[in-house]
């Protein structure tokens, strides 16, 4: 890892669409030459954040800086960005070969041989009109552009909708191999958290337009655990270590708690206390942090208002999508 300063710096970024707040005073930093997972539920604000960071949309308030500059309408910044999104539209009669022929005009690091190899790996018919491609093949077009463009900053927004398990594995393998050879900053947004968990060096979780987690992946992996034992012991233990309870299951006198904030000290103490402590997956932690949490535990009234506004916006967007 190099000690370069961050590729992305966001401070108090807010984006509203009418009454709906998609991003609510978001602040975050994404280090240069890292693979960052941008995770969260549908409509959480992931795509909006990436739209602002790639200059496709304009912030309502606050600041987003990419390589130290504002990305919107800034050719000097944008030339270093490749943004692959699930909803990318292509000119009507374009075939994949048109996309791969035009991409090098825009991405100076484009590797045509790498693109050809990926076309074979994904078994993509390059002479078929994009309109006629299956969902998975359409995703492959984006994935190939994202990888072969080798842009210093590459965003993958739900890049593999419709890709089968084999194709997804190819994507992970190629991404990791190429990243090792050509280090760059990669932001990956996905719902398949467990699949990418080992790829990620940094994790940002966004929910209802707010950042709920922002930490190195290694730190997060050990942070959440489930503790099982007698109810009294478990409760005393959790209180002693001031652990945050994300989920609670009870059966008779026994309890099983999903907690956040586990460290070495906690682990050692659990061993001594005879409590069973098992680490949980990144996906489990994130599910519990974004909507699967104990209801009303830490949500104030402002959160509720925010949530319903976000939901209204989501349904409006869904309607728009259906009418397309």
């Amino acid at each position, binding site marked *: 890892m190099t000690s*370069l*300063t*961050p*590729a992305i*710096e966001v401070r108090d970024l807010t984006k509203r669409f009418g009454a709906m707040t998609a991003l609510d005073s978001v602040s975050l930093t994404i280090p*240069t030459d890292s693979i960052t997972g941008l995770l969260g539920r549908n409509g959480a604000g992931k795509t909006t954040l990436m*739209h602002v960071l*790639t*200059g*496709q*949309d*304009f912030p309502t308030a606050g600041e987003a*800086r990419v*390589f*130290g*500059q504002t990305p919107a*309408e*800034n*050719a*000097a*910044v*944008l*030339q*270093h*960005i*490749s*943004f692959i*999104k699930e*909803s*990318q*539209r*292509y*000119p*009507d*009669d*374009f075939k994949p070969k*048109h996309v791969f*022929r*035009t*991409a090098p*005009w*825009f*991405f*100076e*690091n484009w590797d045509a041989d790498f693109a050809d190899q990926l076309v074979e790996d994904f078994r993509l018919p390059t002479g078929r009109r994009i309109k006629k491609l299956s969902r998975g093949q359409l995703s492959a077009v984006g994935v190939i552009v994202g990888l072969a463009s080798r*842009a*210093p900053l590459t965003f993958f927004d739900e890049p593999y909708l419709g890709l089968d398990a084999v194709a997804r594995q190819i994507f992970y393998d190629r991404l990791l191999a190429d990243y090792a050879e050509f280090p760059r900053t990669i932001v990956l947004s996905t719902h398949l958290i467990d699949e990418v968990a080992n790829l990620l060096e940094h994790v940002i979780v966004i929910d209802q337009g707010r950042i709920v987690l922002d930490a190195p992946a290694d730190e997060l992996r050990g942070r959440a655990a489930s503790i099982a034992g007698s109810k009294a012991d478990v409760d005393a233990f959790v209180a002693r270590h001031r652990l945050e309870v994300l989920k609670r299951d009870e059966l008779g006198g026994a309890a099983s708690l999903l907690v956040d904030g586990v460290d070495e000290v906690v682990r050692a103490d659990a061993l001594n206390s005879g409590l069973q402590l098992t680490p949980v997956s990144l996906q489990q932690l994130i599910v519990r942090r974004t909507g699967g949490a104990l209801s009303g535990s830490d949500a104030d009234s402002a959160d509720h208002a925010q949530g319903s506004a976000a939901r209204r916006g989501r349904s409006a967007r869904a309607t728009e*999508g259906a009418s*397309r």
Partner: protein
Amino acid sequence: MTAVSITELGTRVGGSRTPSAFARIWRIVRLHYANRVSTIIAPLGAAAAIFAVYLIVQAIVVHEVGPSAKHGEQYSTSLVYFLPYQVVFAVQAMNLTFPFALGMSSTRRDFSLGTWLVFVIQSAFFSVLFTVLSYLEQWTHGWGLGAQIFQTFIYGRGEVGQRLLTFFAGILLFQCIGSVFGAAFVRWRANGLMVLSCTVMVLALGAAVLITFTNSWAAVGRWFVSVGPSGFAAWLLLPAAVFAVIGHLALRRATPKS
């Protein structure tokens, strides 16, 4: 805290510089022409179809009434149908390519200027093509049918310069009008088109009402005569420029919709 500066990054990724403004605009032009169907084949097809339909109708007329019918066809408007098609062409060019160009990390500014350059290229190409055809039409006595498709008053019948200018300005004007509609559609979708269409209608009606109530139609007619065909064609470039600027400004804040 200072972030990686662009120059620092440039040296890291292989001594790259930002491409010149013209290079960035020119790749948008190439992008439009990468899809030959909508930029080359369809416009040529539209012109050919209008040409063919007119010739067939003219053949029928000549067959039924005899060659004398050509006097009634002096002010044929057949090629006028090519003009509204330019609006469609412009809207399509913008709507189809805008989301892709932004997906390729282009700026709106570069996209808008590149698209406008495509309009100029299209207009120049068709003005040359139609001028050549207008002379062919003259030498073949209207394709042997006494037809006047490319040399009626509105398109110009004078010398070569006048013909080129008239075709060029007419086509460019309608493409620039199309760029306003295209930008409105890209930015506000169907609502934008609706509001814009109503605005245009109100403005046109308002102008007509104003001219009528001030009894100025005669003055308008005198102006047409005084500027002459070439002068009129040159004047068309002014509204074309105004529409191009409006379209450009509207596009600067547009976002790609999915």
